[in-house]
């Protein structure tokens, strides 16, 4: 805890962000004896700060700095200043995530090869494949404690009522439904207890059964003496020398004072809105379009997953809130089968909301009121539902840009997030609404509500990996094509979104990246 490194120490790795990417990188490097400073924009919370209260936790841990949503999608209208639902705090979005930890499918690394050119989309193959990442997925599952895997041998959670209702519906329509691989302990493991099924995974796990860098990677990194975490440190720009190597990071500390931390290597892990924003904010004479942006792809290809919600009302109680938030996943349509009328796959993730959030998301925006809404809410206890999670096509014009005049409390231009459906996304979502309805009606649903997309918790693609420098921002190691001692360590490096939740893949990529950074430092390549 008490580690303190000098601002002028230029032998350090400076990591920006402390979530799945940043927190994991700090610990992986620390275990190899490499010292780092982690600059985290948010506060450091304690376990006692975590409450089973949706709105309180939303207010406490969400990233609420102003952002503008643009584009014709309903999200921009319903949530004009909240395009994304992510966390500002030590641990980042690993506080909020539901713990779903699935590996990408083989074809998802090769979407260009698999489907050819898709008009209107900017699809590309990853420069790595499943075979290359598989051993790192195993390490990630081991680190995070993913249940239901060969890696850990930890059993699945017991089946909740919510799971049973959906599993029966899936069975009746012949769809494959499986219990979820969750990075939530079902046995005491790694100094953390087993899940108690509080039903509030996404408000932060009060007992610490769910993996979060907040209380795993970060304290482990600090315990080595090789890592200093500086909360409430907002990065203003990344500095470089005249050869184009990055040399340090300018940030505003908790008192609002500007500090310049020197660095040997910089790793950006601030999630897919802040990471490209930092690079764009670091534009200079040498890099007039933003740091690491010779391709013009920084901030482009913003992907969120193709999402929506489906909540069915039954005659009898389901009490879906008495469950891990995501007890299971319907995987029938996770493959790439264009005969369905859309490319790529989607999963139906069984997921509950509490009553407070259900009232906000059932029909968000100005029109969500009246008898139909209140009658559905009256049936809250009889609801079961899904969050649709499908592959989102990379589209170059879905992007993060800097506002022309409006600034935030740090004096930085606010980010403008433009996101709208590719026609493939719309077709996929409609397919998912249709199959969900069939599934729920097969077990007697009286009414099936389709919910529009919520602010995105899965944000990807804005600093994407590519084989060639002209197609993307980073190479297969997450290393900038342009600046050799600059890395991207979060989901913004994803070339495609896959249909799986991103966290496990972020952690696998980070473990692999840490090996590469350590080797490159040792060989004095960076």
């Amino acid at each position, binding site marked *: 805890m008490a580690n303190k490194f000098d601002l002028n120490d230029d032998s350090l790795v400076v990591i920006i962000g402390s979530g799945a990417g940043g927190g994991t990188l700090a610990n992986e490097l620390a275990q190899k004896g490499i010292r780092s400073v982690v600059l985290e924009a948010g506060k450091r919370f304690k376990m006692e700060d975590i409450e089973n209260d949706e709105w309180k936790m939303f207010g406490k841990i969400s990233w609420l*700095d102003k952002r503008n949503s643009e584009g014709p999608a309903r999200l921009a209208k319903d949530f004009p*200043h909240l395009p994304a639902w992510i966390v500002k705090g030590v641990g980042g979005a690993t506080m909020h995530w539901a713990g779903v930890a699935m590996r990408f499918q083989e074809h998802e690394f090769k979407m260009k090869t698999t489907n050819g050119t898709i008009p209107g989309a900017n699809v590309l193959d990853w420069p790595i494949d499943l075979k290359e990442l598989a051993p790192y997925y195993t390490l990630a599952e081991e680190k995070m404690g993913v249940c239901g895997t060969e890696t850990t041998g930890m059993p699945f959670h017991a089946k909740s009522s919510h799971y049973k209702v959906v599993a029966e519906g899936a069975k009746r329509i012949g769809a494959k439904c499986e219990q979820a691989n969750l990075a939530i302990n079902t046995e005491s493991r790694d100094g953390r207890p087993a899940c108690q*099924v509080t039903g*509030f995974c996404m408000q932060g796990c009060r007992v610490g059964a769910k993996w979060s860098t907040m209380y795993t990677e970060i304290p482990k990194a600090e315990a080595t003496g090789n890592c200093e975490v500086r909360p409430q440190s907002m990065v203003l720009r990344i500095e470089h020398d005249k050869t184009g190597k990055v040399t340090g990071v300018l940030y505003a500390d908790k008192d609002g004072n500007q500090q310049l931390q020197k660095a040997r290597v910089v790793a950006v892990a601030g999630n897919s809105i802040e990471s490209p924003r930092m690079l764009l904010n670091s534009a200079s004479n040498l890099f007039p379009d933003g740091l690491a942006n010779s391709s013009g792809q920084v901030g482009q290809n913003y992907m969120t997953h193709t999402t929506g919600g489906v909540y069915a009302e039954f005659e009898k109680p389901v*009490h879906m809130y008495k469950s891990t938030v995501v007890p299971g996943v319907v995987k029938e349509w996770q493959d790439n089968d264009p005969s369905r009328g859309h490319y790529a796959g989607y999963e139906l993730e069984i997921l509950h909301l509490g009553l407070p959030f259900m009232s906000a998301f059932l029909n968000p925006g100005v029109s969500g009121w*009246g008898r139909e809404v209140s009658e559905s809410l009256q049936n809250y206890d009889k609801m079961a539902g899904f969050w649709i999670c499908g592959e989102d096509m990379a589209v*170059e014009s879905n992007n993060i840009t800097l506002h022309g005049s409006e600034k*935030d409390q740090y004096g930085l*231009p606010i980010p403008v997030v433009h996101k709208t459906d590719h026609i493939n996304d719309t077709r996929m979502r409609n397919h998912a609404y249709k199959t969900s309805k069939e599934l729920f009606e097969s077990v007697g649903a009286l009414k099936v509500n389709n919910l529009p997309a919520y602010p995105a918790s899965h944000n990807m693609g804005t600093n994407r990996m590519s084989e060639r420098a002209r197609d993307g921002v980073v190479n297969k190691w997450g290393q900038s094509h342009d600046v050799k001692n600059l890395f991207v360590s979060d989901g913004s490096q994803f070339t495609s979104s896959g249909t799986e939740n991103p966290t496990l893949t972020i952690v696998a990529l980070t473990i692999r990246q840490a090996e590469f950074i350590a080797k490159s430092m040792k060989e004095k390549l960076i």
Partner: protein
Amino acid sequence: MNKNKYQNKIQNIEPTEVDSPSFSRRNFLTKGSMVLAGAGVFTLGVGGALVSPSAWAASAVGDHASETLLAMARDIYPHDTLEDKYYTQVLLPMGESAATDKDLATLLKEGTSELDRRTNARFGKGYLKVEQETDRVEILREMESSAFFQKIKGALMMGIYNNPELWPRFGFGGSSWEQGGYIDRGFDKNDWI
């Protein structure tokens, strides 16, 4: 491929006034209900105390406007079995604030007058006298984008569905970790599937 390259650069160097957090909050308030609670704006000022409709009617905006607001509240989130007090305890703190907040008082008074004006034009009577819910809702739909309507709606959403006192009536359990979650309390119970 580089068509957006220059969009990234609309980085205006000239200094502009930085938003204070409180300004940002107000901004969220008018535009989306999601951040309402985040900013901690709506708390139940009266806790679980019983507030009678008459006590509510004594507040700053006057009897008629108060009664109209209560009727409107029941039309926005109608739960026929919920007592008036659950609606009035959302409205009361607003009425109290209106005593010192002139803008709020104006918003509430003008909003209710506008409701009456519209029902008079369409049905020849004030909002409270319109008998059919569907008729009242027709008028409310026309006004749903107004700051007045959204203020009442946002407060109600928090006051009804985020009110722990009411959660048992909707079958929601609320905070559970203090009781050890549901691991030993029926998470797997389902007698119909």
